[in-house]
């Protein structure tokens, strides 16, 4: 398998990209924060281009490192966490339910 050509060392994560990624991972950030993050993220990503020196043409990726391959166990019925224990940390509840703001638009 041939990997795509890697980005060059002179590329930049600009503030628009920072804001876009922040929204994707649901982090609210201000314009000022986006401006501060932009050069920091750029410097860190550029540092990663060090890996381009390594020839990995014939190398398989490691997804994990233990000797365990597939773990199966007997399906057993066990008591779950008691509802009050679970609800103890829920910020907003209504009766025994977890309450959240609108998920879908009403249209």
């Amino acid at each position, binding site marked *: 398998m041939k*990997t795509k050509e*890697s980005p060059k060392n002179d590329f930049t994560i600009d503030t628009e990209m920072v804001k876009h990624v922040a929204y994707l991972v649901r982090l*609210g950030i201000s314009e000022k924060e986006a401006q501060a993050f932009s050069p920091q993220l750029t410097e860190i*990503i550029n540092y990663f281009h060090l*890996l381009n*020196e390594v020839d990995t043409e014939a190398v398989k990726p490691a997804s994990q490192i233990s000797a365990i391959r597939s773990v199966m166990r007997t399906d057993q019925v066990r008591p779950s966490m008691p509802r009050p224990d679970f609800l*103890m940390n829920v910020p907003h509840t209504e009766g025994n339910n977890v309450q959240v703001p*609108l998920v879908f638009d009403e249209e």
Partner: protein
Amino acid sequence: MDLYSLTLREAGELLAKKQVSSLELTSATLEHIHRTDASIRAFVTVSDETALAQARQADERRRRGEMVTPLTGIPFAVKDCISTKGVRTTCSSRILENYLPPYNATVIARLAEAGAVLIGKHNMDEFGMGSSCENSAFFNTHNPWDLERVPGGSSGGSAAAVAARMGTFALGEDTGGSIRMPAGFCNVTGLKTTYGRVSRYGLIALVSSFDSIGPMAQDAYDCASVLQVIAGKDPHDATSLSAPVPDYLKDITQPVKGFRVGIPKEYFQAGMEAGVESSIREAIRKLGELGMEIQEVSLPHTKYGLPVYYLILFAEASANLARFDGTRFGLSVSEGAENVIDLYLQTRREGFGAEVRRRIMLGAYVLSAGYYDAYYLKAQKVRTLLRQDFENAFEKVDVLVAPTCPTTAFKLGEKTADPLAMYLSDIYVVATNPAGVPALSVPCGFSNGMPVGMQLIGKHLSEDLLLRLGHAYQSVTDWHKMRPGMIQ
């Protein structure tokens, strides 16, 4: 001698002879914490009441002779990413500031079963993201050897606490040096266990394929006693290993003559503090005196360890931290939220510090379509090469010896403005985690008055050998016994 400064072994002997009670030992430790921690700030939570209750129970167990273990009645504390039922568990983050876990992590359950006494929770870099403890959302922890310096991170609170004898032992968590690096900075012995040797159930995850819980204590012998209790298969953690748990104390005092020590030449490059290098060289000479055979080896991909480590960390952490969304637990900033997306954006903005947000964004970036192959997949491939480096080295030698850090503890504030410079302080400790191998950091000297750590890196499941070699070294040196001036 003050009770709080005893080693686990010494305290255990006094408890067994009934010359001291757990209540006396625990009370002395709590009093010492309340006197000392105002200047160090190692603890996020000190749980006096539950600790004293557990100490009384431990004394009762001893009185009746029921289920007595070497840890019964011994006071300890853990890094605040390990879930403790009913005791606040924060990860030093605003987003979990008031979180009370409804269950115990397996390691906590096992220590409780052994009769150990939980006295509190240690400060850390938020979610384990940092190398100095300065990314705690609450406060900085200070190095007991010099209060103007950092204790290292991310298990900085745990290392500072053990160094200042605030608790007989600690559990830290090591994702890429987070046990060993602060252990080195604070003159403590710390063990990063083989991936899967210790259950991660109840550990708040940072990088699920790297995270390893391990003991931190005054010496290797005490680390062995703690590991004995926490190691082993756990049905709650599918990645925990079913390999039998050896008796870690059985051979710990045996001679070490003839073991082969490899010195990875790539770990001795420019940039190392002179006093660190001379301490390590002297320690290696000491290992030779013990009859160990020293030879140079090569880990050719060492310089790629740091980018591999951070790339995979960002990717896995961004996924793991998606669960903090303000709906089921933790902080929830719902005022004015018109929909659930607003709730997520507001909560995660208020709840996460700058470093956590940087890493979540970088994780999403390196996993995104178009960049996945160039970054994440590339890192996983080089990870294979890093692992092969270790496998090749362990065909020639039994253990690798290297400095834990290129420098001693740096000043508070020195690296906070430059995230990449902070990352580079992890250069010697990160490669072990992508490979999953265990490593022990032991005190081996001082440079400009600050402690130096030496790490012994072994093959998978070689904790017994690492602890034995560490113990042999500590039997002929006194570095690990040295205490910071403020508690002498």
